[in-house]
């Protein structure tokens, strides 16, 4: 049973059939999947979802694919951890970390890619492709391997080694492009027009984007079918921010949760914060920038979903915050040392922004707050390697005593 209706332009609301297209012919606006929510609310219950598999497919009625074609490498239902230690430090009693760095390819990207791979099979594509800031290409290559498809992944030159190795192991064709993400994105938009490939975040984008809703579903379910008071979400294109919100709203609309009063906060690194700048200047459009940040997974200077992220910020009374570049590594360390979670640079941006939101009294001590950690620290080891210190001793008791004083233990 599928509840999908059609594709609708997010800007002018013109409708299109379910095809591998992503742009409105009339106004160039992005297309989005729409569903028959009345039917969903009649047939979907909390029990039905709870008895489903422990992965994203438990939310299948809200996803745009047929259940027959799913490609599952174990994506989703990642831990929601009550972050008591970090919370205590920041002055928050109900701080939670949604640890999405433990997905099969170690980032939240497995969510949209799982959906897109299934849809690409429905459309009979033989090749999966993507433009990536690093995490996406690992996920695309992994899913293509499982689906027995070929994959081509394009990325800006100078990406972290861990992300390149983390993708190459699955056997894709890797294409490094001299330029930044926005250059690669433009190139692939033009290629997608002429190649019969499923570019997951170009021509397949409407289906791809739906995958991120599952983060909203999971968080609400894991909180006992309640929406949190605050979400702190990292932003590159701004898509994730709007889709977590869409997930929460859909759950309320079909009656799975009672209310949604969540403030959706958005976090960008100072070296690439075009959405934050537009938010501060109270603009509805985003002026592009040239990225200069260590948070390469967030280095999109021309964020296509920026206008929708700005709308979501306004609608939810959220705040957009820029994390100082020098705080990113420090906050990666802070999360690791307090909660035992090693995140990549985007996670450092989230924790720095969370700290600022608390400091500026945008979040109250009792509020239920969820910080979204979307990628794994093992992929961006370069940014913390300077802080590594260790002892080297001889295999003797004396040598040990020379470096560790017992009275300090």
């Amino acid at each position, binding site marked *: 049973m599928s509840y999908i209706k059609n594709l609708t332009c997010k800007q002018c609301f013109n409708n299109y059939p379910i095809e591998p297209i992503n742009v409105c012919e009339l106004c160039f606006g992005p297309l989005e999947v729409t569903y028959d929510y009345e039917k969903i609310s009649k047939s979907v219950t909390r029990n039905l979802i709870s008895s489903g598999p422990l992965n994203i497919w438990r939310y299948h009625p809200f996803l745009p694919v047929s259940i027959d074609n799913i490609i599952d490498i174990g994506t989703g239902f990642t831990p929601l951890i009550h972050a008591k230690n970090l919370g205590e430090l920041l002055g928050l009693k109900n701080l939670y970390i949604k640890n999405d760095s433990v997905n099969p390819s170690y980032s939240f990207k497995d969510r949209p890619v799982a959906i897109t791979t299934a849809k690409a099979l429905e459309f009979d594509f033989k090749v999966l492709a993507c433009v990536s*800031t690093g995490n996406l290409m690992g996920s695309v290559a992994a899913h293509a391997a499982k689906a027995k498809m070929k994959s081509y992944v394009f990325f800006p030159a100078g990406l972290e080694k861990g992300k390149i190795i983390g993708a190459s192991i699955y056997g894709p064709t890797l294409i490094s492009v001299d330029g930044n993400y926005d250059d690669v994105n*433009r190139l692939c938009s*033009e290629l997608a027009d002429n190649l019969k490939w499923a570019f997951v975040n*170009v021509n397949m984008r409407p289906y791809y984007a739906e995958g991120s809703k599952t983060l909203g579903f999971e968080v609400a379910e894991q909180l006992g079918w309640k929406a949190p008071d605050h979400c702190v979400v990292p932003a590159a294109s701004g898509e994730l921010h709007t889709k977590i919100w869409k997930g929460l709203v859909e759950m309320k609309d079909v009656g799975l949760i009672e209310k949604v009063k969540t403030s959706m906060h958005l976090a960008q690194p100072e070296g690439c914060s075009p959405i934050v700048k537009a938010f501060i200047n109270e603009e509805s459009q985003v*002026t592009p920038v040239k990225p200069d940040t260590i948070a390469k*997974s967030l280095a999109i200077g*021309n964020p296509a979903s920026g*206008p929708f992220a700005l709308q979501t910020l306004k609608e939810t009374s959220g705040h957009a915050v820029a994390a100082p570049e020098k705080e990113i590594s420090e906050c990666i360390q802070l999360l690791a040392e307090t909660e035992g979670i090693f995140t990549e640079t985007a996670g450092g941006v989230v924790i720095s922004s969370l700290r600022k939101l608390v400091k500026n009294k945008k979040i109250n001590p009792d509020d239920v707050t969820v910080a979204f950690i979307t990628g794994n620290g093992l992929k961006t080891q370069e940014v913390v390697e300077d802080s590594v210190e260790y002892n080297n001793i001889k295999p003797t008791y004396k040598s040990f005593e020379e470096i560790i004083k017992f009275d300090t233990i």
Partner: protein
Amino acid sequence: MSVTVRIPTPLRKITNGADKVSVSGSSISEVLEELEKEFSGFQARIYDENKQLRSFVNIYINGEDIRFLDGLDSNTKSGDEVSIVPAVAGGN
């Protein structure tokens, strides 16, 4: 004296299927005027009612976003490649 304009799929119905068109013009706005002369209705698709580029239309000259140049007044010269590309999201 002409620039090559790459046409994205959503506009190819207007250009009778052509994915590349050569036109003359010394600025982006002139290039777009020329395209309108050749393909009626072209501008209505990419301009809003105030004759500004629609928010999800990006234009590039040899790969550089015209918003980093002089917008619609950006100069074009013979041999330049102009791309009209829908804004597409990616990343987080």
